């Protein structure tokens, strides 16, 4: 008994996290039947929320877990919409085109990753911005797009407004759930340990045999694919495609805001950040310029004073973990008689 009592116990979840997992399943089920009860406007807003969650989670995967801060992720958002237009124009069913477009964006990002991942930190950040600017200009050259005039996903018009709205809602919900599940599985699996090792110290990770570049490439391509899907879904909700709005750096600004506020490098943080952003947009989006000033200022304040974000701070303060992707070591946890000493609680500080 005494040896067992001092044996460290490695936990992959807690009682809270098991409740949380059930709550997540319930929430998704409720969201799936929600269009029956919501007004048309609310359904559209919820669709936007799902897209924000995708954007935040994907940017977080890249920056929070891969250590790759990009200010050019709008390139994948724009390409997602553009390829959807192109594929639908070639005769593909418009709803199918949304997913095919995400796949194409993912494939395009593979050769790009070979090149861009050799840059580090700030160079990667602005390098991606240059890629986004160049891609925007090249898409403008396409006759179908007609420069900044843009075009629309006309083939969606064969569906009546109600069906279209509900279908896009479900597609967005399904995409969000699937992408979050992929990310969760990735982080919880063996790649997850490698990803967290890279996040904490890239050189040290490489020295113990972590395949740094391969792991980063995986995250880069996943983020491209997810953001491509998000761009295609956004196109489906707004129908019109103007390159200027889709290739706008504003999208990356939103992603950065959501992740910084929610908690960079935490799985739950990105989702929380997207929720916060969604609420702020709903309440203050009408104030125009001041709203954007506020977003920028909040990002600065969080990066300076609360770099772990809301969720990171909550997690640190209360040891709370709802969707655990990491491992947690508890000493003497098997012996109920031992009261936890301060030293033992510090063992909980392993980062997810």
């Amino acid at each position: 008994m005494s040896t067992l009592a001092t044996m460290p116990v490695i936990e992959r979840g807690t009682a809270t996290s098991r409740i949380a997992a059930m709550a997540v399943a319930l929430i998704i089920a409720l969201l799936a039947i929600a269009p029956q009860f919501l007004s048309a406007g609310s359904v559209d807003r919820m669709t936007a929320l799902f897209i924000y969650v995708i954007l935040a989670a994907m940017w977080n995967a890249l920056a929070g877990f891969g250590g790759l801060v990009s200010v050019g992720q709008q390139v994948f958002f724009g390409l997602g919409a553009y390829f959807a237009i192109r594929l639908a124009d070639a005769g593909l069913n418009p709803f199918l085109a949304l997913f095919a477009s995400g796949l194409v964006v993912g494939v395009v990002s593979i050769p790009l990753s070979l090149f861009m991942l050799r840059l580090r930190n700030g160079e990667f950040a602005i390098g991606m911005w240059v890629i986004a600017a160049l891609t925007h200009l090249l898409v403008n050259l396409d006759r179908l797009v007609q420069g900044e005039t843009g075009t629309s996903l006309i083939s969606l018009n064969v569906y009546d407004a109600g069906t279209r709205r509900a279908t896009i809602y479900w597609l967005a919900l399904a995409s969000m759930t699937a992408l979050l599940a992929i990310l969760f599985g990735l982080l919880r699996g063996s790649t997850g340990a490698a990803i967290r090792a890279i996040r904490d110290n890239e050189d040290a990770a490489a020295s113990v045999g972590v395949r740094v570049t391969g792991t980063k490439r995986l995250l880069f391509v996943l983020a491209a694919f997810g953001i491509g899907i998000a761009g295609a879904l956004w196109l489906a909700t707004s129908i019109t495609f103007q390159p200027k709005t889709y290739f706008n750096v504003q999208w990356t600004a939103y992603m950065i805001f959501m992740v910084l506020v929610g908690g960079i490098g935490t799985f739950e943080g990105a989702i929380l950040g997207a929720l916060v952003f969604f609420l702020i947009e709903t309440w203050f989006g009408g104030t125009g310029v001041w709203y954007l000033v506020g977003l920028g200022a909040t990002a600065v304040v969080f990066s300076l004073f609360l770099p772990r974000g809301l969720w990171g701070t909550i997690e640190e303060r209360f040891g709370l973990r709802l969707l655990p992707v990491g491992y947690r070591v508890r000493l003497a946890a098997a012996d109920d008689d031992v009261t936890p000493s301060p030293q033992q609680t510090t063992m909980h500080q392993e980062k997810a």
Partner: protein
Amino acid sequence: MSNQIIQGILLGGYYALIACGLSFMFSVMRIINLAHGSLAVFSAYALWWLASRYHVSPFVGLLIVLPLMAAIGWALQRFLLERSARGGALLPILTTFGLAIVIDNLLFEQFGADTRSLAPYIGSLSYDSWEWPGSIYVGKLAVMMFATAIVLLGGLQLFLTHTRLGRSIRATSEDPDTAGLVGVDARRANAIAAAIAMVTVGLAGAFLGMRATFDPYAGAPQLLFAFEAAVIGGAGSLWGTLIGGIVLALAQTLGAQVHPQGFLIGGHAVFLVVLFVRLSASGLGLRDLLRLGKTS
């Protein structure tokens, strides 16, 4: 064609001007300031405001705006960059990006969406030109811009190699801890370097306003130009920045010849080609290529 080449080379002077502050800050503090372009546009607006409101010539206005920019640079380093740099290499990117959004939108809030220019306030200088042999016309402003770039780059070079302060900045950029051991105040050196960088940004903003038009969101393209020129030419000396600026401008000029929308495409394309060749040829990180001020 030779006319276009000369215009391109002179335009390169502007890119060198806007790039030198970016690469200077990067080489000293290892920070790429994403608010770089927005701050240049801020300087242009400050000069425009002085000129339109108080009829201050932009050249006189620089006497007010450049010290202001130096103060901004000092404050930026002390209150923002220093703190965020402690959180790792990624945080300053996010901090300065947030700052850029704040500056852009405050400018929009204050001055509206109209495009502005300083050209109306500098008399005939904006369109005066000299005729060179072979009926080539070169704008006086463009020549002035190019000359300013050379003087500024040369001055910075001399400052870094021949003054005590310059040497302490270089020492800090090499290794802040060791520099501290031999009595260099790294915080002070960094703050001064940021102030100097912002003065060059202020000058670049002035020329941006004189040679073209600007609007509140013009900062992002300026940042990209600065970054591209710094990377293309940044082979180890400040003069590389000038070469980088010229290459960028020539590529843009060539691009514009090929296609009506080819100006920007040409610039971005040459940047990526240079980057690709460099990365595959050297195996070095870009960090090593961007290093400046290590000429001695």
